[in-house]
């Protein structure tokens, strides 16, 4: 059985969501709902991430020890699981971002018609 494609992943390349999560957490620790809100606002609502797809990404990051999670009481007096980026997560993010930038540069060069010849 091939798994039906999750709509949230259709628009993003693999690893993009993780990268955004790590970048957000680098700024400040957050819980899941806050992460979704943060990403949505920062992208000017351009990226419509399906909220649920955040969780598998978070679990992958947890498993690879790039983030850690703890239950805390939020400012709104709610019991939330707050994620923090680890040192390994910081290194990983830097690596990923520079790789991503090189890739983007490549795509950009290919796509820009003026410098084709």
């Amino acid at each position, binding site marked *: 059985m091939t798994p039906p494609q999750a*709509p949230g992943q259709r628009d993003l390349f693999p690893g993009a969501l993780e990268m955004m999560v790590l970048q957000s957490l680098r700024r400040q620790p957050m*819980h899941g*709902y806050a992460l979704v809100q943060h990403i949505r606002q920062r992208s000017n609502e351009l990226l419509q991430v*399906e*909220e*649920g797809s955040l969780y598998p990404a978070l*679990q992958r990051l947890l498993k690879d020890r790039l983030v850690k999670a703890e239950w805390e009481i939020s400012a709104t007096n709610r019991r939330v699981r707050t994620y923090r980026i680890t040192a390994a997560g910081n290194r990983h993010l830097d690596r990923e971002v520079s790789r991503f930038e090189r890739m983007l540069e490549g795509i950009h060069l290919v796509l820009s018609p003026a410098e084709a010849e």
Partner: protein
Amino acid sequence: MAWFRSLFPRRRMYDDLSEEIRQHLEEKIESLMADGLSREDAGHQARREFGNAMLMEERSREVWLRPWIESLCADLRFAWRQAVKSPRFALAAVATLAIGIGAQTAVYSVIHAVLIDPYPYRGAMRMVHFHLYDKNPFPFDMALDGQQFAEFRRSPVLDGVIAEDKWSMTLTGEELPVQIQADRTSSNAFQFFGVPALAGREFSPSDPQTVAVLSYRFWRSHFAGRMDVIGKRVQLNHQDYTILGVLPQRFAWGGSDVYIPFAYSADPQRIASVYARVRAGVSDQAAEQALQPMLDRFARETPGNFPQNFRVHLVHIHELATGRFRGVLTILFLSVSFLLALACVNIAILLLARGEARQTEMALRKALGAGRGRIIAQLLTESLLLSIAGEGCGVLLALAGVRLLRQFIPASLFPSEAVIRINLSVLFFSVGVSMLTGIVCGVWPALRAARSDLRQAADAGSHKLAGRRGLQKSHTALLAAQLTMTVLLLACSGATVRRLSQLVHADLGYDPHQLVSTNLTLSEGDHHGWSDRVHFYEQIRKMAAADPGVISAAIAENNLPPSIIDSAPISIPALNAGSNAASKFAADHVVPQRVSPEFFATLRIPLLRGRVWNTPEMAHAAHLALINQAMQRRYWPGSDPLGQSFVLNHGVASGNAWVLVAPGNNERYQIIGVVGDTPNQGLDEQTAPAVYLPYTMITYDWFNLMLRIRGNAPELLHTLREQVHGLDAGQSVGDLVTAEDMLNDDTLGRERFIAGLFTAFALVGLVFALSGLYCVQSYLVAQRTREFGVRMALGAGRLHIAALVTKTSALAVAAGTGLGLLLNLLCSRTFADWTSGNSRDPQMLGIILAVLLVAAVLVSAIPVLFAAAIDPVTALRAE
């Protein structure tokens, strides 16, 4: 509780995840409600924007999974449910494997312990004894004097040589003298054997002559296994020996009780038999060729100790111990391998039939997205679960089987050094073979399923128009193979049972009921005058005969029939006169038996003609003889043997320090009577021509006392020992053996054991074959129920349906049985050589065939009747 939960990190992780997602949704709903939505709408929208919460949670969990463990657990659970769902299938598979593995391992363990590696001695496989053959088929044991032994030891083809003189000695210095088995071996013996002592030490060339090493058995039985015996003294034949040590349990060379150093004297008559180890890399033939010239020279120096014109032949010690039993054990091993093969075929049939029945399920799984690997993994798990269960039970069964065999194997069948225990390599082998069968046959249907698609399989499932041709073929072949092996097993069993019953009903020629025998051996040098010795023997015989519990007593040189007795050359002057007859009888041998005149009455051997010599005639060694019927048939078929004479041993009665020859014995005898035959070459061989002579003609330093008794044997033995002690304080008496015990244990024990084992195998094999047959037929019926329904709806008779079901299996049964019979006939000569059983007796084969066919018909009756009773309406509606 935190520590406890930390033992299950994944469980906690999952709980956290669910909680987190729940909190997320709630927070979202609350914020939507703050935007003015109703709680219901907010809930809907939150869930819509979140996506499929279940799926997301599942995905999140999957991140953590080690997939193969998870699926393995799932497969195991599924396999267990399958086994519980069809317990008959599971039980059949497990029992089949267990019996196959258990029997194979137990029997092979015994064979390995008895045949392949029975001895603890260094280089045991190269240890040999020397037989000298002249024209006579019975070999001479080679014995050398001191000088010859010293030279023999230096032979480059041998790696260690010992001289040995085994004899009964008397344990004296106690209340009643006890006869024990002593092994006097040259002082290098323990270096030769290379087995360290259990306690104390062994003797070496530097030790004095008066030391002794005890066997484990004797140490346990006589000294109750006390450690403080070392350094103590033991009195043998009135001489003190210092106990140096105790040997380990497996050291049982010659079955002796004590080992003491043996020294050659200068006397060339002092000879001893020789054992040696052939140097590694030297073949038996090369060794024989190298030794022959040396032995020829020895024979010229001491012609009395060698036969004329002999060839030396090496006999390996394991051949001495197991002899003809080797062939039987080999067949036993083949049979039990058949049994394992049968078991595996049975498993194959079971798994294949089941796999076939589950093709629809496989196809459905495939259609729902299960990969080929997943399906294979699942079926593999199922068959491995069954294999492992079966193999576990098989190991237990093997352990029990080895114990059982150890109890039931007559001790005389194997060397006493052998330690029978489970053989790990064969255990691994049979477990491996059965596991492989399980894997291959378990996965086969999955591979097939992987090739087919749902439509095909579903068609097959819903229409079931006919069983697949290929599968039918493979089933037919497997069934036929099973039946072939079963026929062979049944034939083995039949032949051994038949032989046993022949032996049980064999004509002994004497009455074993209430007949006992014991051995008396003189201490060395006692009663060394001929008349003194004869007088002493006769005194003991008379004393025994006077006991109220004894009806009559006799003296004999040989053991009770049917023990095998060596023969001696004979010439009959009257017959040899004619030139034709001379060539016919020139190299003849007959069996000489030296007995007292009461022998015939005591054993109740009928005197057919003439008379027996009387006591005075015996006392002065009259040259009178009786012959048996076989002798009369050979030499005087139509004429009267009485008054005829013959010459034994070329007219030379050879004596030595222990064997005393009557004065004037020229080995010429006159026949005065004819008695009935008693077997003298073993129970199953034809009785050889035999002559009975007065035992006084050549008197050994031991004799057998045979008693026909009224009461019970143990009481009698005690009285006898006391009486003999009264006559000669140093004279011991051996154990009393009843003729019936001897027949049952030594003679028939082996045959009974073999027949029992073969029969057990054959029955188990038969059960396997029948369960295979039943399984094939019932799956066939189950698979074709709908087809049969259609056929019947279209007017086919029940008989026709029954015939359809029977056809394939009947073909397999016929082919298998036929092939089995053919193979049996082809192998019957080898079988006869190895077991002296006849596996081609038509009556026996008839019985086997009848048993097999009746059983096959009975077993297949159930599925056939079931098929014939199919109600077309129900069958068509059932899908």
